[in-house]
């Protein structure tokens, strides 16, 4: 969604990240309601990771205003690639 905000609507990158979060909140809320009807949501586990994540997002938005992001982007990308490998082989 962030690249689309930048490419189609001409947003600056940080505006794109902020605005995309608002859209994500709505989309995730709608999707979780549907998933609840399938009985797939582990509410306890969701809260167990979701509550510390609120602390994480406060740290992340604070950091975004202050640190160069290139190294973080590369680290994040490597983490994703490792997760992908684990999903495929597990």
């Amino acid at each position, binding site marked *: 969604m962030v690249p689309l905000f930048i490419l189609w609507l001409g947003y600056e990158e940080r505006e794109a990240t902020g605005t995309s*979060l608002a859209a994500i909140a709505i989309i995730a809320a709608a999707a979780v309601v549907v998933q609840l009807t*399938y009985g797939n949501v*582990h509410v306890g586990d969701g809260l167990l*990771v979701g509550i*510390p994540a609120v602390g*994480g997002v406060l740290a992340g938005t604070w950091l975004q205003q202050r640190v160069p992001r290139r190294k973080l982007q590369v680290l994040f990308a490597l983490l994703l690639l490792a997760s992908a490998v684990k999903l495929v082989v597990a």
Partner: protein
Amino acid sequence: MSLGAVAIGFVAGAIAGMFGVGGGVIFVPGLVILLGLDQVDAEATSLLAIVPVAIVGAYRQSGYGNLRLRDGIMVGALAIPFAALGVVVVNAVPERAIELGFAALLVYVAIGLLRSDSHE
């Protein structure tokens, strides 16, 4: 194990705040690998965790002048039927296909990150 869950949550939240994603790309593998959920349950549970993260993230970003609320709401509202459709599809196809599809998504996001220029 619950310490692992706290760590997943914090890292996913920090990434959500920095990169404007919901955190699902961390929540889902974390729930599968560390908490042993199956793929579809992990995706469903991740959605629940994403809601507070995205709300708080958007609120913080608005404090930095980075939120265009009207556009965000419009894009989010337009996406609702597709999100619902996605849930139906995920529940209808084999789990292994979902795992492989999610792995492909992670690789795609990773490549996008590695190719993007730093703006700083």
